[in-house]
């Protein structure tokens, strides 16, 4: 008889265990295997979520565990959704989201279009371009901090070279006007390769015969681009937009390393603001309501993302 992994596992099972599971159905054995994973999922994901929803209706403060906790109903939600400072944080997040996604899609698609052409050193260029994406956000934040230094920073010197300004006359991270753009530049530098890879997958999925048929019909290159390339890549592009949108909505590490939310609160994105409410001001109930608002928003976007993903799979 040939030795299969199944027979090997059956023989390796101790007789006492084998006796115990002998009478169990396949379904019961499957549950035994899946059970620990489901238990962990419930304990690590579902229980904290339900607990956070519960806390969001209270005035609980984690730094005062002995204090009596009162249920305040929807008051936390009401206060957050009428707070003009949080509205400003949302606008800072919107500025960051809009510009990073726009730049990443434009540059990422252009790079993918160029890389998709056959030329010498194609693979080497692809490797070089995707390098920033592989770095840790903490490392990227730290070295861009050096690049943005007004006295020794390379970025200021490059800008000075092209504009004729004094390199130390402007401070990217310290200026209220420039700081929001400084985080946009770094995120774009880091994550454009990701958008490029998704676009490249979309471009490579277009069969050559469609272009050949268009050539026979004497369609111009521009026409081919707008009637074949763009519509065929669009689902992939949408996927990239949604993925980057969800990721940047939760952006924390890179911005904390670069600006820490400053100067003032000009680059204080919602996730940084939430962390301050929860672990600096210790307003746990209020921060829980804030987290639930962000969770519902990300969950809603994720639902659209899954729908877009299924559409891409259908192709």
């Amino acid at each position, binding site marked *: 008889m040939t030795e299969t992994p199944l027979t090997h596992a059956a023989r390796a099972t101790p007789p006492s265990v084998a006796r115990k599971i002998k009478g169990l159905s396949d379904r019961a054995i499957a549950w035994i295997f899946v059970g620990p994973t489901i238990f962990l999922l419930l304990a690590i994901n579902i229980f904290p979520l339900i607990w956070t929803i519960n806390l969001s209706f209270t005035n609980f403060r984690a730094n005062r565990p002995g204090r009596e906790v009162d249920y305040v109903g929807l008051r936390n*939600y009401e206060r957050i959704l009428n707070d003009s400072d949080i*509205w400003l944080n949302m*606008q800072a997040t919107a500025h960051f989201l809009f510009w990073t996604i726009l730049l990443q899609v434009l540059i990422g698609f252009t790079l993918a279009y160029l890389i998709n052409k056959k030329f010498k050193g194609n693979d080497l260029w692809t490797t070089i371009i995707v390098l920033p994406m592989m770095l840790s956000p903490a490392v990227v934040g730290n070295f861009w901090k050096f690049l943005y230094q007004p006295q020794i920073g390379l970025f200021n010197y490059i800008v000075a070279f092209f504009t004729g300004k004094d390199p130390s006359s402007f401070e990217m991270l310290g200026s209220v006007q420039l700081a929001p753009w400084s985080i946009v530049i770094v995120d774009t530098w880091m994550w454009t390769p990701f958008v490029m890879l998704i676009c490249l997958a979309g471009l490579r999925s277009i069969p050559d015969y469609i272009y050949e048929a268009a050539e026979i019909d004497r369609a111009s290159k521009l026409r081919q681009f707008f009637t074949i390339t763009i519509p065929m890549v669009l689902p992939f592009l949408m996927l990239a937009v949604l993925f980057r949108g969800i990721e940047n909505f939760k952006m924390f590490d890179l911005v904390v390393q670069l600006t820490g939310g400053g100067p003032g609160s000009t680059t204080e994105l919602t996730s940084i603001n939430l962390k301050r409410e929860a672990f600096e001001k210790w307003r746990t109930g209020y921060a829980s309501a804030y987290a639930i608002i962000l969770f519902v928003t990300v969950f*809603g*976007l994720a*639902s*659209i993302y899954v*729908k877009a993903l299924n559409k891409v799979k259908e192709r």
Partner: protein
Amino acid sequence: MSQFIQGLLRLKRGPWEMVATLLIALGVFMLMQPFVMWGFTYSFITTLIGTVMFIIVSHFRE
């Protein structure tokens, strides 16, 4: 357009998912827009309705 309305009346998944998606997108826009405060105030309830609707209608038949 009439096909879309018919789909809604017959509880088809496609049109209802479209409505839920639009509600979520509207809610996210309202949350982040810099124009009116009431938009920000009602953004959460709009996104929540859209998200719950999306979960329900994704079980409708194709």
